[in-house]
C-alpha cells in the first residue's frame, strides 16, 4: 500500500510541475485567446535569466523578483513587437509565430548559455517527511502550494479587479470592449506580460526539481502542461491544477502497475484525456463558448 501511495504522492508532485506551466498557458489563452507554443521556452529563458543574476552574486529573492520584472517586460515586448503585428491574421499565422518564438528562444538560450547543464537553488526547504513509509518532500508541497496560491490570485484578479475584468472583456469581445473604453491592445500586452511572469515562476520552481537544467528544460514539461490545461479546461486556472495533478497521478499509477503501459505512460494519459474530452469537450472545468451567428 505504501508503494501505491508513494506513486500517488510522486504523481501529485509531477502534477504540480505540469500545473505551474499550465497556469501560464491558461492565463494567456484566457486573456488573449492564443494557444502559446512558446510559453515553455519563455519560462526556460526566464529561468536562465534568474540563473545569470544569481551567478552574478545577487541574493536569491532579489534575483527572483528581478527575473519576474524582466520577464514581464519581455512578455510585453514580445506581444508589442511580434504578436501584435500578426494579431489580425488567421489563427494559423499566430500559432506559427509562437512556434517561431519557440525555436528562436531555444536557440538563443543555447547560444548565450552554451547548452551546459546548470543548477538552480531550491527556494523550498530540502526536508523530506516520512509518513507511514511514504516519503513526502517539502519542495513538492511548496510547488503545489504555489500553484494553488496562483489560482487564488488569478481568480481574485479576474473576478475582483477592473483590470482583470477588462482583460477578459478584451479577449472575449475586442470590438465592444473598445467601445467601452478598454484599451484592448494594451490589455493583450498585459496578458502576455503576466503570462511571462507566471512562466518565470514555473521555470524557477521546476528547474531545481530536475536537478539540473539546460535549454531543453521546458520542452517535455510543455507537452504535459498542454495535456493538463486541456484536461482541466483551457480557460480554467483551477482546472490547470486539477488537470496537472490528475495527469501526474494517472501517469504514475498506469505506468507503475499495468505492465503493458510501463513504456506507454504518455500515450495512455493521452487516451484518457481524449476520453474525458469526448464526455466534456471543454475539459473538466472549462466553459463552452456560446457563439452568436
Amino acid at each position, binding site marked *: 500500500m505504501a508503494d501505491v501511495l508513494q506513486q500517488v504522492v510522486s504523481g501529485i508532485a509531477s502534477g504540480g510541475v505540469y500545473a505551474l506551466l499550465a497556469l501560464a498557458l491558461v492565463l494567456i489563452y484566457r486573456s488573449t485567446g492564443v494557444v502559446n507554443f512558446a510559453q515553455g521556452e519563455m519560462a526556460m529563458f526566464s529561468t536562465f535569466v534568474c540563473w545569470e543574476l544569481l551567478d552574478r552574486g545577487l541574493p536569491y529573492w532579489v534575483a527572483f523578483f528581478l527575473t519576474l520584472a524582466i520577464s514581464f517586460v519581455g512578455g510585453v515586448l514580445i506581444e508589442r513587437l511580434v504578436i501584435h503585428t500578426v494579431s489580425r491574421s488567421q489563427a494559423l499565422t499566430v500559432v506559427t509565430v509562437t512556434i517561431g518564438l519557440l525555436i528562436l528562444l531555444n536557440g538563443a538560450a*543555447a547560444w548565450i548559455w552554451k*547548452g551546459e547543464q546548470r*543548477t538552480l537553488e531550491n527556494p523550498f526547504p530540502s526536508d523530506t517527511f516520512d509518513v507511514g513509509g511514504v516519503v513526502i518532500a517539502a519542495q513538492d508541497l511548496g510547488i503545489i502550494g504555489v500553484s494553488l496560491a496562483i489560482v487564488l490570485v488569478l481568480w481574485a484578479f479576474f473576478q475582483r479587479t477592473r483590470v482583470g475584468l477588462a482583460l477578459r472583456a478584451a479577449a472575449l469581445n475586442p470590438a465592444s470592449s473598445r467601445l467601452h473604453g478598454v484599451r484592448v491592445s494594451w490589455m493583450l500586452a498585459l496578458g502576455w506580460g503576466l503570462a511571462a511572469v507566471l512562466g518565470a515562476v514555473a521555470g524557477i520552481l521546476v528547474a531545481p526539481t530536475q*536537478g*539540473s537544467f539546460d535549454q531543453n528544460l521546458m*520542452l517535455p514539461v510543455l507537452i504535459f502542461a498542454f495535456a493538463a490545461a486541456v484536461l482541466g479546461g483551457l480557460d480554467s486556472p483551477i482546472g490547470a491544477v486539477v488537470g496537472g495533478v490528475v495527469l501526474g497521478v494517472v501517469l504514475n499509477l498506469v505506468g*507503475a502497475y499495468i505492465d503493458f503501459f510501463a*513504456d506507454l505512460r*504518455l500515450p495512455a494519459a493521452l487516451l484518457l484525456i481524449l476520453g474525458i474530452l469526448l464526455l466534456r469537450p471543454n475539459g473538466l472545468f472549462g466553459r463552452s463558448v456560446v457563439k452568436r451567428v
Partner: protein
Amino acid sequence: MRVLGVLALALALSTGAASARPSADPGISASEIVIGGTVPLSGIAASYASVGRGAEAYFKYVNARGGVNRRKITYKYVDDQYNPAQTVQAVRQLVQQDRVFAIFNSLGTEHNLSVRSFLNATKVPQLFVGSGATTFGRDYKRYPYTIGFLPSYIGEGKVYARQILKTKPNAKIAVLVQNDDYGKDLLAGFKAGLGAKRKNLVAEQSYDALSTDVSSQIARLRSSRATVLLLITTPPFAIRGLVAANRLGWRPQVYVNQVGSATNIMRIISATANPRIIEGAITLISIKDPLMPRFKNDAGMKLYRTIMRQQLPRGDVNDGFHVYSMAVAYTFVEALKKAGRSPTRASLVRAVANLNLRNNPFLLPGVVVKTSSTDHFPLDQGQLQRWSKNQWNPLGKIVSAKP
C-alpha cells in the same frame, strides 16, 4: 497564374549545376582531404554539438602544423537535428554534393543505422561512428566500410555485471534504462554478464527521453528492495534518477554507465541531491575527463586545453564531449597517416582495420586502440572508477570491454 511565382522560386533555388565525376576517389587532392559527418546542432540533442566542434578544433590544430602528408583536413559537419531522416538527407548531401572522402564521427545509433547500407553500397567509409551499439563493430563482414569507436554497450554492460558478481554476488539489482536501442543493448550485455545470476536482477524500469522525471520509476525500483542500482541513462536522467532516489532516502550501490557519468554531471548530483548517494558509485571510463584532478599536469590534457584555447575559445573546457571527439579525431589522423601517401577509400578502410595505437593522448593511460581484420572495435578497453572525495578514482586495472 499563381503557379508561376512558385516555379520561378524553384528554379532560382536550383542553380547548382551537375558536377563532373572525377576518376579517383572524391574528396582528396594533393593539398586537402574533405570528410563530413552529422551532428545535432539544434533541437533536443543540441548539447552534443561539441562532438563536432571538438573534432574540428583538433583538425585545425593538425592543419596548423602542416596537416597529414601536407594535406589539410577539412571536416564538414552538418546538423541532422538528431532526426534519422535528416541524417539521410545530410549524408546524401555530403556524399553526392560535397563529395566527401569519408563520413566520420556521425553521432547516434539510429542515425548511423539509417545510412549504413547506403554508405557501404557506394563504398564510402563510415568511420568511428558515435554510438556504442554493438552492431557497428560486430557486423563488419556485411558492412566492411563501417566501424564504430566507443566501447560497445554490450561490452560495457558485461563489465558492470562482472564487477557486481565479484563484489556483491548475491545483491539484488535494479536497473533504470532508456527505452531505445542504446538502452536495450547495454541491458542485454549486462544480463549476459550476469549469466546464471540473472535472477539477481529483480527490477527493471524504463523511461522515454521525453519524460520530465523518473521518480515513479525510481519508487518502483526501490520497492524491489534492491541494493544495487544500475543507471543506463543519459546525463539528465542520471541526475533526475539519483535526485529522486535521494529524496526517497534510498541508498543503493550506484552504477552509472559511461554515457551519463562525466565528472561535471556527478558533481551536479552531489550538489543538488546529496554527496552520500553517489559516494562509492562505479562507472567504466575510457576517455580522460577534463575535471579529473590527476590529469591536471598530464601532457595529453595540457594539449587538449591548448587546442581548446587556440581553436575553440568559446567552448566549455570542462565538457567531456570535446575530449571524446578529439580522441576520435586523433585516431582518424593516425589512420590517415597509415593509409599511404595517396590514400584511397579502400586503403583508408584497410588502415582503420589495422590500428595499434598506444599513445592516444586523450584516452586513459594504458588504453590501447587496436583493430584487426576480425576486430572492428577500436576502443574496447576501459577502467572502472569509483566516486569518492568528489572525483572519480581508478578501481583496478584496465579491463577489456569486448562484447
